[in-house]
């Protein structure tokens, strides 16, 4: 590719790789450009134009589907821009390069008594990726999405122009680029508000619930007082037990609750041991999980977890580190390989419908029933409560989300997509939405139905203004946006 022949003292670092969605069910070969500065981001746009290829923006690659998968030959990956440019320990305001990960952020600020306002279930996303997706945490119902915690950012447009956006300046772009999945420009600098914490621990209570209704009632009763709420659901259980599961309800500690915050606020206190049961290396745990990665195995694991949850629910509240509570899955490296490590074999998709409060119970019960009927039962189901926000393409509704992990088996892939199509119809008819950080199945016509018309039109106009030649695109853009943006 010509990119490489443009040699000189300041060539952008690049590498030819296989770039895939986190769920491993979609990907392609591409040349990945790794700029180290805003000037190099501008250079990447010029390189793409010269090479005649579009450019896909990518952070840590933690989107399950195709949100950061290239449509053509070039990817711009911001992970080398990972410096914390500043942190004010009086106000908790962090100024970050776009490639700083949630991990780096919390490790930097926790010893100073701060924690990010919003984190995802994994700490590996970059702040650019997090902002582009407008991620939510287990506290979405209380504090909104990460966009609500963002004070300002610089957006580098394909023309090379850098626009500073906040709630006053370029407010349109501010509300469109957050949740805009890297379609408008590249974040070059991000300013975030973080929150003060008085301990490195949270107090967690387990509550076992016998069905979906019980789970929802608990959330509703506690959402005014809890700091974090998350529900796990055993998707294999049917009949009266449909939606049975376990809630984790967590509270931040107040000043003085923790007798030795200087100890719990250290990074060392947050880390889990490298070996499980003291001897088994974590790096190999996925091989054990792989043994159970089939319907029968996962049915047993879900059932066992439910029983363990009933016991936990009878116990006392306990303390858990912020990182342990927020990112538990990260402590099993590459657990997704349990779904098949070799390329092209398997993988997983996450299907996460967001459904308004009033109809959520019925829609989710119907979804679970149809999955069981189709013989494609999600291996993991996670339940969260959300609230509305002001970002144009936001997924968040005043209601619920139910994240369902489906195994992608090549032999059943077409059937799985068909099932998802049916579920999508159900969700959209009920006024629900989807979240492109997870999605791999929704089409352009669906997007145009579930997002508000006026916002879509405004977004399309901004896209045409910011990127008139469509230099930035990825597979997600082609799948779910291009048709109606071009129209």
């Amino acid at each position, binding site marked *: 590719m010509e990119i490489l022949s443009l040699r000189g003292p300041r060539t952008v670092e*690049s590498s030819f790789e296989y770039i*895939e969605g986190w769920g491993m069910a979609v990907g392609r070969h591409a040349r990945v450009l790794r700029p180290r500065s805003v000037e190099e981001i501008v250079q990447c746009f010029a390189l793409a134009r010269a090479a005649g290829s579009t450019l896909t923006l990518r952070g840590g690659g933690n989107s399950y589907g195709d949100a950061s998968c290239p449509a053509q030959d070039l990817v711009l990956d911001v992970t080398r821009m990972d410096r914390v440019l500043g942190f004010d320990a009086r106000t908790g305001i962090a100024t970050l390069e776009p490639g700083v990960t949630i991990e780096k952020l919390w490790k930097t600020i926790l010893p100073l008594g701060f924690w990010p306002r919003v984190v995802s279930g994994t700490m590996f996303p970059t702040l650019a990726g997090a902002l582009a997706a407008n991620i939510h945490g287990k506290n979405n119902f209380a504090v909104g999405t990460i966009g609500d915690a963002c004070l300002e950012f610089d957006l580098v447009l394909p023309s090379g122009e850098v626009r500073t956006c906040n709630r006053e300046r370029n407010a349109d772009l501010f509300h469109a680029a957050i949740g805009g999945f890297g379609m408008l420009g590249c974040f070059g600098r991000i300013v975030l508000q973080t929150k003060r914490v008085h301990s490195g621990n949270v107090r967690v209570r387990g509550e076992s619930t016998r069905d979906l209704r019980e789970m929802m009632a608990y959330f509703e009763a506690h959402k005014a007082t809890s700091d974090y709420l998350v529900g796990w659901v055993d998707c294999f259980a049917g009949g009266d037990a449909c939606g049975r599961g376990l809630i984790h309800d967590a509270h931040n500690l107040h000043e003085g609750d923790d007798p030795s915050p200087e100890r719990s606020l250290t990074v060392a206190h947050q880390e889990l041991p490298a070996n499980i049961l003291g001897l088994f290396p974590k790096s190999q745990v996925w091989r054990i999980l792989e043994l159970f990665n089939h319907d029968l195995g996962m049915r047993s694991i879900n059932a066992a977890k439910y029983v363990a949850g009933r016991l936990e629910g009878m116990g006392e509240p306990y303390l858990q580190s912020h990182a342990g509570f927020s990112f538990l899955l990260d402590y099993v490296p590459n657990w997704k390989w349990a779904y098949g490590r*070799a*390329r*092209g074999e398997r993988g997983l998709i996450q299907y996460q419908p967001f459904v308004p409060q009033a109809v959520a119970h019925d829609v989710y019960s119907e979804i679970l029933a149809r999955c069981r009927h189709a013989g494609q039962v999600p291996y993991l189901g996670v339940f969260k409560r959300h609230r509305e926000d002001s970002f144009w393409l936001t997924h968040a509704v005043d209601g619920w989300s139910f994240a369902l992990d489906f195994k992608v088996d090549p032999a059943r892939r077409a059937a799985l997509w068909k099932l998802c199509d049916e579920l999508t119809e159900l969700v959209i008819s009920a006024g629900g939405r989807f979240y492109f950080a997870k999605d791999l199945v929704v089409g*352009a016509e669906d997007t145009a139905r579930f997002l508000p018309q006026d916002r879509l039109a405004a977004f399309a106009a901004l896209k045409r203004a910011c990127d008139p030649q469509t230099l930035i695109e990825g597979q997600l853009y082609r799948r779910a946006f291009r048709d109606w943006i071009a129209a």
Partner: protein
Amino acid sequence: MAHATDAHAAHEPATQPEPARRVRERHAIVVGASSGMGAALVEQLASEGVRVVALARRKDALEELARRCGGNVIALAHDVHDFDAVPALFERCVRELGGLDLFVYAAGIMTEVGAHEFDTRKDLDMLAVNVGGAVAWTNEAAKLFRTQRSGTIVGISSIAGERGRKGNPVYGTTKAALNHYLEALRNRLADYGVHVCTIKPGFVETAMLASARAQGRSIQGAISAQAAARSILKAARGRRNEVFVPFKWTLVAAVIRNIPSVLFKGLNI
């Protein structure tokens, strides 16, 4: 530049490239393919229906090879001294093939050096081809294979890397370096399902051997390049780590490795 066909009408996105099967690869690159084991490997792979990009300095020899192999071989002229050209060329090869499952580095030179000759130019040139080129190419393959979590790397080293013999100090050094490098890659990539196979040929009928004979060395018991190629593919597909070709050299190597230095000094091997 190759662009995927637009499949946006159906909203099922492009799926993964077709599965790389564990044993039988379908797309291969062989660097150092114009003669000897490299050429034999290209012929063997092409005859099994594998699509191969064959690279070497000598375009004419490569084109002759491609003709012999029918449609499965793409011939590209490349001098492995040109490290800077490798990333773009590697990308071009993979795009033309439509994927990659097997990478073979078979380029190597052995320059004759006299018993009392210490010629830095000659020595550095062997390092450039045997090690520099190997690293430049194999690093690219390693990056791709790690990210796609599949693929096999084969490096053609030599029995000469087992001990520091007096005959050609730097040739042996290049092979020892290559062994070390390949072993390290194997350990790095094992968690990603990528295999690295080090081949250590003894006597194989190649141009290198012919030139050694021309220098008056008597060499017996060599196997043909074709036989070597078959053993190499068998070893790679069997996910073997280090293999001597022909097999009997395993024993020879074991003996050579264990001769104490005090004795080794006096031996004429």
